[in-house]
């Protein structure tokens, strides 16, 4: 008993002080499940940031090294995610978590594990608007924008183009419904009119009834919040065939090479937006990622790199690996003022922080944390001109 007390006291003393230690980051992603194809590249991006910090030789006291531990969430499996998060914190004793991946699973592990244990979670890819208002004790951040933000961007694009009336159809799931609703409220607030906001099921062969209803409601533009290889394409096809709509607005689920190939020359003047930015960070990250042997252009790989980098920089700024201490610094290192830090410049950032300066981490996805610690979100606005998808600008 005496020994135990002594040991506990010793551990308590040690906690919070900086000394050479093995810092661990948990990578809590959906390595199995519907998004398993992009998870490995996201994890590789996290490891890239960790390797940079280790190579700098100045992380914390200079003798500390960072390592990563992978854990699976299954993306749609809340109980698996909770068990994995539990394991990372209690058995692997990580100092911070990059994850979770999908919105539902992230909510579960945040509320059931991270909050009670006081662990910082930085999600690279959970985009549900629900996570904006969730009770998080300042422990939860995300480097991806909320879908509510995309709705606002869409409203802005339409208003700038002078379009006052649109019809909306969305794919019948959390993504489609969330996006369509956030868009409708943002658009109506700014004076636009949504004539109809209706769902379509994916995987059907025939969308003539849906197109008929949309056409009857009318509008200058049809907003298709769906997937390009699913019902979204069917709706566009049906609308073009019957002459119901000629001009479309494509949110991120629709903007892809497949859209350009299948519809490029038929949707002249249509427009849309998807996450993207024009900072140098993206290009630098792509070069570094290819050198490291993964696919940096895969969805959410840049955000994953940024999530890991933010945790490491915040630890450096706080001089501590205790989540309760460094959580206060995450917003500081992500935003101005300070020296801008791009991918590959983590060593520079760590040095500045070591010397007591300030940094503004830009990273691969031009991170700017707003509100309760989520990315402001940058979108690339595209338009179809002469059958090709062209960049109009960035928002």
């Amino acid at each position, binding site marked *: 008993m005496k020994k135990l007390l002594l040991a506990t006291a010793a551990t308590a003393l040690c906690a919070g002080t900086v000394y050479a230690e093995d810092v661990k980051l948990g990578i809590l992603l959906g390595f199995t499940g519907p998004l398993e194809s992009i998870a490995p590249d996201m994890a590789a991006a996290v490891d890239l940031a960790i390797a940079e910090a280790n190579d700098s030789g100045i992380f914390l006291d200079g003798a500390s090294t960072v390592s990563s531990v992978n854990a699976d969430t299954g993306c749609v499996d809340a109980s698996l995610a909770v068990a994995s998060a539990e394991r990372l914190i209690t058995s692997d004793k990580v100092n911070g978590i990059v994850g979770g991946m999908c919105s539902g699973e992230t909510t579960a592990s945040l509320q059931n594990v991270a909050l009670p244990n006081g662990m910082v979670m930085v999600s690279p890819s959970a985009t549900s608007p629900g996570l904006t208002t969730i009770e998080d004790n300042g422990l939860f951040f995300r480097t991806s924008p909320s879908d509510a933000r995309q709705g606002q961007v869409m409203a802005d694009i339409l208003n700038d183009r002078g379009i006052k009336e649109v019809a909306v159809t969305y794919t019948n799931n959390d993504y489609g419904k969330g996006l369509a609703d956030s868009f409708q409220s943002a658009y109506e607030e700014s004076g636009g009119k949504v004539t*109809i906001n209706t769902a379509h099921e994916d995987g*059907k062969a025939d969308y003539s009834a849906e197109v008929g209803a949309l056409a009857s409601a009318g509008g200058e533009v049809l907003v298709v919040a769906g997937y390009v290889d699913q019902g979204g394409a069917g709706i566009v096809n049906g609308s073009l065939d019957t002459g119901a709509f000629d001009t479309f607005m494509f949110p991120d689920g629709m903007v892809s090479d497949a859209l350009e190939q299948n519809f490029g020359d038929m949707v002249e003047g249509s427009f849309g937006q998807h996450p993207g930015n024009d900072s140098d960070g993206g290009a630098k990250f792509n070069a570094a990622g290819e050198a490291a042997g993964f696919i940096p252009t895969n969805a959410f790989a840049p955000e994953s790199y940024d999530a890991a980098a933010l945790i490491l920089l915040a630890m450096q700024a706080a001089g501590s690996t205790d989540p309760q201490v460094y959580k206060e610094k995450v917003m500081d290192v992500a935003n101005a003022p300070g020296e801008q830090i791009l991918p590959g410049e983590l060593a520079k950032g760590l040095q500045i922080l070591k010397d007591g300066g300030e940094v503004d981490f830009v990273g691969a996805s031009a991170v700017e944390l707003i509100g309760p610690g989520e990315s402001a979100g940058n979108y690339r606005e595209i338009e179809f001109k002469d059958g090709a998808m062209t960049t109009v600008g960035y928002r």
Partner: protein
Amino acid sequence: MDFLNAIVALTNYVVIPAMSYGSQLALGALGVTLVYGILRFSNFAHGDTMAFGAMVTILVTWLMQSVGINLGPLPTALLALPFGILGCVALVLVTDRLVYRFYREQKAKPVILVIVSMGVMFIMNGLVRFIIGPDDQRFSDGARFIISARDFKSMTGLNEGLAIKTSQGLTVVTAVVVVAVLFWFLNRTRTGKSMRAYSDNEDLALLSGINPERVVVYTWLIVAALATVAGVLYGLDKSFKPFTYFQLLLPIFASAIVGGLGSPLGAIAGGFIIAFSEVTITYAWKKVAVYLLPERFEPDGLVQLLSTDYKLAVSFVILLIVLLFRPTGIFRGKAL
């Protein structure tokens, strides 16, 4: 002018899609109703028989396209159709020999055969996915439109466009031809008459010297041909994806039951009833109303009875009503 616009809008969004969808359902329901009338069980494998026939046709179409055979403005699939029918005939005859004949000889109850056909359905479903994959396949070529919405507008000067796709025109024409041939066959030929006799009274037919195995083979031949034609037309008009054929099973059965199982005429009527009610009940009538009504009566809402999400529910409601009030169906088929 407004009146014309209303008519055109209605035709474009309701009548034409419902006509082609109805023809496809009718052809499918004819197959189901023939199996029910003559072989005396509900064939749940019918949707996947359609998928198999369409798949063979698609594979032959691709082969023809690759060597440069085509039909000009008509889709190449029409040339490949006979091969698809042959493939499908081979499949159903082998299935009958391996599976159904065993139960027929045992005089198994219809309910057992229904369960057996479900097993066959899953195997055919797997077979199609295994060969061609679960994804969307496109095989239509030739001219896409008989008349496109844009051309119609510039031709008539109306506000509303009217589009008729080649596949839609083709569907209706083919359905009419196939149905005419089928009815001539059933009513005028010796084999057709023996099939009807067998359907009316099996024992009496046997006594008059009708060979039951021959009737069974002929029935499967016709069913395979109908299924392939329906499957190919559906695939041309919409797109080919194995899973959608599986889903098609429900409206097809609804059509056959509403019309009266076992009655070929009923199957056709049922197909169109289901198709038209699905489209008209979920159609938003605002556009038509705005053209027809005087300005102060113009509706603010969409004038939509049911959201399109509930499209499938419509056929079930009709099915329920028919089963409750007229279980034999509109054309007095056999009661279930």
